[in-house]
């Protein structure tokens, strides 16, 4: 099964709650460079980490959003680092918060050219969206797991909306099966 290995996770978005309320201005002063807080443009404090390369958005409600991680382990590591630094700076935060993965974006390659027009007709116009005038890719919404896949004529696939790694593999498997079913693969 070499098929499973070519799903590459590009981005993971996860949320967590580290305390009830935070004073972002004092956090901005306490954290080193990499922290940006501009209430005019964005209500949250953006904290960039070099390793793992992620951006954490910290809000005054104590909620934290971690974006840009390439694996679930990285998410945990990134949030751990942020929390640790906050604790070091003397803020009262939850040191082991529950992390909730909200979205996983992954890419894959079918290694074949796809004729999207034919595919759209073969898969039934009501199941897929293909408007070359608006977007060059074909949008295929998988019901279960609830994942949206974008298929491009180069054979590349972008998969978004998954909450778990297994969902990605399941969805890609379904897409492959679907494509096989209509004889496009």
């Amino acid at each position, binding site marked *: 099964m070499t098929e499973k290995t070519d799903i590459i996770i590009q981005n993971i978005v996860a949320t967590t709650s580290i305390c009830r309320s935070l004073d972002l201005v004092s956090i901005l002063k306490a954290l080193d460079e990499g922290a940006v807080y501009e209430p005019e443009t964005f209500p949250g404090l953006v904290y960039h980490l070099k390793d793992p390369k992620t951006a954490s958005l910290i809000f005054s409600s104590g909620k934290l959003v971690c974006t840009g991680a390439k694996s679930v382990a990285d998410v945990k590591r990134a949030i751990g680092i942020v929390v640790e630094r906050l604790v070091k700076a003397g803020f009262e935060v939850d040191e082991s918060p529950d992390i909730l993965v909200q979205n996983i974006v992954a890419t894959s390659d079918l290694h074949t*050219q*796809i*004729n*999207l027009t034919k595919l759209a007709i073969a898969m039934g116009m*009501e199941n897929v969206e293909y*408007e*070359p*005038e*608006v977007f060059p890719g074909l949008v295929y919404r998988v019901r279960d797991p609830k994942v949206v896949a974008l298929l491009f004529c180069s054979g590349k696939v972008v998969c978004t909306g998954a909450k778990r790694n297994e969902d990605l593999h399941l969805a890609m498997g379904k897409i492959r099966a679907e494509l096989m079913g209509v004889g496009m693969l």
Partner: protein
Amino acid sequence: MPEEDANTDSCPECGSTHLVRDYQRGELVCEDCGLVVDEEYIDQGPEWRAFDAEQGQKRARTGAPMTYTIHDKGLSTTIGWKNKDSYGKSIPTRNRAQLYRLRKWQRRIRVSNATERNLAFALTQLDRMASNMGLPRNIRETAAMIYRKAVHNNLIRGRSIDGVVAASLYAACRQCGVPRTLDEIATVSRVGRKEIGRTYRFMIRELKLKLMPTSPEDYISRFCSELKLDGTVQAKAAEILAEAADNELTSGRGPTGVAAAAIYIASILCNQRRTQREVADVAGVTEVTIRNRYKELTEKLHIKVEI
């Protein structure tokens, strides 16, 4: 009288579709089993033979035909502006004020509630946009039909009337095989192309309309005539596109861009050269797009173009 014509195209007894209209008796008869499906119906045909649409209109027995582009389907009556009674005698002065009031109220009552008022407003918008783009009757009817369906399914709620009208028009154009680009619709509408596209996708999904993705071929004749190119160029462009489709060069690319490039190449091959700028303006794409597609097409299809 049946509400829709849809249920009278097959016999309820035997399911046969051989229904014959007997105009002498005013009956709709099944030819296979002899069942009278409908009786005493109105002969909507013209009085006698007509040789074109204009004559047909003139000789129609009844008034204006039913149309979906007017909110009451054009079936309501209006009190005429002439102060004459049914005998052609003029109405005495003392009754004129009354008639004036009646006329005023009838005009107001024509639109009975908010839903209908919205529909009337939407349909005038539709007509305005269609006239602006010079769209024919059948497309306007189709668009009005789609809009009415959208209203019926409660799809307008939460969306702007203008957006839904524009989306209906876009869908109607595609359904009739003469697609307009979203940009073209957006220029005559008050909403942006993104909004139109979004509403369109939503309506397609909810109304379960089945529309093929637009193909570059659909644009050729229109773009060619706008560029004042003749039939040979059109044929050549169509030929190029057919070949391009076989070589997987059209999938995943904007149909207008591919069409524009094909027309550009065809115009050079037929010695009726148009500049990239001219073609780009008509197609609503940039020159860069044309150059890219041009390169793809000429290289992959081995077309020799001497400039």
